[in-house]
């Protein structure tokens, strides 16, 4: 058995994901947290600890924003920690919640993720210019999209993947998002639309990429004893994994995310998963760009290296396919309030496993799902394995 205590997710909450929301970061956090608690039939006083996940302070525009958000996150008079692994934060935060409970230190933990990217004006892109090395990279005029384009291009080159194949991911996820009530960019689009959209940084085009968003998400974690008291269908955290690769991203071959594989292996080992494609019923890999879904499916060992485009083309990754990928609509469809988007993926697996995903519900009887996020300088992988 994993850990001293088995840990379950017993509730989840989300706000809308939109380019601009009126609520402050604190208020967004509150809305998501309150919904998660209500859905679990629990109250704030039942929470013994709180974990916050949020991406750079440079979005919200508050130094130490974890501290600033604390009351909205429900941390009043409670042990409270913020964890931060760039874009990987959203899936990493429930891992931090997991050890709060699995260690036996707490019976419950409220896991929060928040992002208010619109505060950075006129465009949150600015905040991304400070993620680079100030001496060797910022003087070149770095832009976030550049580096993903470099990675995408390398991936395409190495496996001889065409843009048409990659665009299918965007088409699928934006369509899936039409069924998600919080989604920002659900749409019916075609491969042609993607290929004809504005070139941002070749090979990245406008419709290859997820938008910036405001939003918050929360999940409630409980120890086995508490979970069985409050719900008949807890969803168990059976595997956790995370990994970071070297800072020197220009010294690595970007065609394959070794760090995601390393994180996945850690999580699968804990969950006792030996044959991922067979034992995993659905996955929510991180998809801020369409190629990333493919890249991450491979890193998650859901298929062989270079095989993800083929599976996508064959429809395997559709909701009614053999291995549904991003049934939520992902970041491409739902929007990308960085940390909140990662936790949205975890919430999606939670709802899918409980059969509560409504129009998004995948058929069959899913028992095991995986969510993954990715961050830093194409460097970080965080993975969670959930089981019914």
């Amino acid at each position, binding site marked *: 058995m994993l850990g001293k205590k088995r840990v379950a997710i017993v509730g989840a909450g989300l706000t809308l994901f939109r380019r*601009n*929301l*009126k*609520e*402050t970061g*604190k*208020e967004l956090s*509150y809305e998501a*947290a*309150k919904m998660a*608690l209500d859905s679990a039939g629990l*109250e*704030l*006083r039942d929470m013994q600890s709180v974990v916050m996940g949020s991406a750079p302070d*440079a979005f919200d*525009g508050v130094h130490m924003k974890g501290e600033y958000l604390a*009351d*909205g996150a*429900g941390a*009043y*008079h409670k042990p409270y920690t913020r964890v931060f692994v760039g874009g990987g934060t959203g899936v990493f935060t429930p891992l931090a919640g997991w050890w709060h409970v699995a260690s036996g230190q707490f019976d419950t933990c409220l896991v929060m993720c928040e992002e208010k990217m*619109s*505060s*950075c*004006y*006129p465009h949150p892109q*600015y*905040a991304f210019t*400070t993620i680079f090395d*100030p*001496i060797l990279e*910022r003087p070149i005029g770095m832009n976030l999209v550049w580096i993903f384009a470099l990675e995408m291009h390398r991936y395409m080159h190495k496996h001889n993947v065409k843009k048409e194949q990659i665009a299918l991911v965007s088409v699928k996820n934006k369509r899936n998002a039409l069924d998600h009530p919080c989604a920002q960019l659900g749409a019916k689009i075609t491969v042609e639309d993607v290929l004809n959209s504005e070139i941002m940084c070749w090979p990245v085009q406008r419709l290859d990429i997820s938008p910036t968003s405001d939003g918050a998400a929360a999940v409630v974690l409980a120890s086995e004893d508490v979970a069985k008291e409050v719900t008949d269908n807890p969803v168990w955290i059976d595997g956790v994994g995370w990994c970071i690769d070297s800072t020197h991203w220009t010294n690595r071959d970007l065609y394959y995310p070794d760090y995601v594989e390393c994180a996945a292996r850690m999580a699968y080992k804990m969950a006792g998963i030996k044959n991922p494609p067979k034992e995993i019923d659905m996955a929510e890999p991180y998809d801020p760009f369409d190629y990333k879904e493919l890249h991450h499916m491979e890193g998650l060992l859901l298929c062989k290296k270079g095989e993800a485009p083929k599976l996508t083309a064959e429809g395997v990754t559709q909701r009614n396919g053999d291995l549904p990928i991003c049934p939520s609509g992902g970041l491409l469809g739902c929007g990308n309030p960085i940390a909140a988007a990662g936790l949205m993926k975890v919430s999606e697996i939670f709802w899918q496993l409980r059969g509560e995903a409504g129009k998004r519900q995948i058929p069959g009887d899913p028992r095991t799902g995986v969510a993954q996020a990715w961050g830093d300088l194409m460097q970080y992988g965080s993975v969670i394995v959930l089981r019914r």
Partner: protein
Amino acid sequence: MSLEKITNPLSARHWMGDMEADYVYTLGVAGERFFKEIKENGRIMGAKCPLCNIVFVPPRMYCEKCFEKLEEWVDVGRKGVIHTFTIATIDVDGSKLKKPVIFALIKFEGAHGGLIHKIGKTDKARIGMKVEAILRPPKERKASINDIEYFKPLE
């Protein structure tokens, strides 16, 4: 430890840069209503938690103690009491202020919390001193905490 160190101080390079951007913060659901009340009606409001039976100033969307959504707003008046204060003589850049500034936490009767603000029209302050908010003329108000110009002693 590294096998060599910098021993010539002139060889130790530094690189200058910043992390500066423009920020536009929405005042939020509670904040917008609070500052509109000050701007348009000259009223300082609090929000009541029916479960904890306390009135929060500044008003929030939720009770930080129990997470109840706060719907009931009450006028707490412009008069309050100094809970604590300080006299600042230096500015954020470390320079000496031409005139010291008194910062204080002002509490309002029957309310939990209060407002952090400046005390004006005096160079003295004390804990327990009664003060009143002096608002800027309506035309100059911008829906900001600075729509209150300062708090003035009532004694």
